[in-house]
């Protein structure tokens, strides 16, 4: 069952079909929420996004792709969440890399282990420090590996805006991370 068929059946009230669609996009939705700053609440954001997507499924344009449409809802939910927190969350949390409840105290975070070896930690740190808009563009383009058009849809901005924010973000990263790190 492809997306289009699953959506058609969901619109007809077939919840089995929608369940299949949710299962299919659950991982990328979760990843998006985490990387855009939902932190620990990513699971809740994702659930809420899928429920909202179901409610608004009739407004989905069938000729377009489901993933960026869904991820836009996830991104909006994440924005609402960070606004509701009433703070500009620290960038670690914004990237969803805050301390996790599992593992003994003081143990290195798994993502830190993964990135520490080759100096990527500094790059990650630089991404964390980017201004929100540039970071979101960089996260969508490179961490989530979305195209520019998909990124535009997810972030609700024009294609040119994605290009310029990505460019500014990369320029800033380049300034902050020395060449030898990336060699």
């Amino acid at each position: 069952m492809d997306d289009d068929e699953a959506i058609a059946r969901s619109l007809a009230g077939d919840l089995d079909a929608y369940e299949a669609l949710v299962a299919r996009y659950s991982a990328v939705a979760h990843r998006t929420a985490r990387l855009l700053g939902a932190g620990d609440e990513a699971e809740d954001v994702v659930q809420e996004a899928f429920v909202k997507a179901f409610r608004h499924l009739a407004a989905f344009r069938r000729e377009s792709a489901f993933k960026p449409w869904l991820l836009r809802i996830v991104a909006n939910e994440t924005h609402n969440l960070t606004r509701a927190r009433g703070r500009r969350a620290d960038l670690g949390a914004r990237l969803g890399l805050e301390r996790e409840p599992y593992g003994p105290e003081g143990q290195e975070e798994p993502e830190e282990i993964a990135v520490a070896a080759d100096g990527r930690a500094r790059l990650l740190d630089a991404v964390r420090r980017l201004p929100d808009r540039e970071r979101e563009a960089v996260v969508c383009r490179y961490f989530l590996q979305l195209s520019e058009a998909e990124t535009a849809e997810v972030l609700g901005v024009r294609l040119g805006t994605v290009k310029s924010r990505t460019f500014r973000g990369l320029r800033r990263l380049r300034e902050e991370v020395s060449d030898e790190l990336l060699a």
Partner: protein
Amino acid sequence: MSSSPDGHDGHDRHGRSDRRDDRFEDLAGELVALGESLNESLRDQAPPPSAVARAVRARIERERAEADGRAPASGRRRPPFWRRRLTISRRRLAVALAVVLAVLLGATPQGRAAVTSVLRFAGVEIHVGGPGPLPTGLPSPLPGERRVTLGEAREAARFPVAVPSALGEPRDVRIADGARVVTLLWPGIRLDEYDGTLTVVFHKELGPPWPDEVPEVGGWWIRQPHALSYVPASGGEARDERVAGPTLIWQRGMVGLRLEGPDLPEALRIARSAH
């Protein structure tokens, strides 16, 4: 539309390529590699897709049931099995009858980054997730609270006042806030009755655990001491809070009831006898 990252184009629309863009290609490659290592760890943190799918389906089914007006009186919004915290919904559900259980985002008063789950039921809004109450706060009268006879209370209240036969005649009866709340008192037991269908009358703050659902009376049991404050009919801020003991909350028709004092078995016996 390619979905693979190509970094910065490297070439603009005039076919030029400059060194700055070449450098960005390296950077883009590094970012993609970094993203993939992040994804690996994020994958471990995500709940299983099938669990997400089931939880989402359950919520949709509940919404449908509500829309059809055949909602069960209890059992909604149970937490997904892989976590204790309830799901978050920013959509306040229409409160027509019976149970409304909306779980919202919130922040602790100190602005810490924490989720407060909100349970709304029978005119009581319960915030779970904070540190729980400070051990202060003495019972203070509700606005306009005065002592009346049971007959006067029944006359003044806009809702039927139930008296649990298990307790007999109350020792003391009070009405408050324009008879919006009727309070019946026995030694060590307090029963507040109020129009609990449309607005929030009481506000409770508590730390975990989440209240226990009590299907016997279609209500909730808060086992731990918690901060209780009254939300006046005139609106505005909730009044000074006090610390309330274990409380059973349930609903009888349009009337919300909160019973404070007895333990759960006794509270249930009393609740069942309230007619």
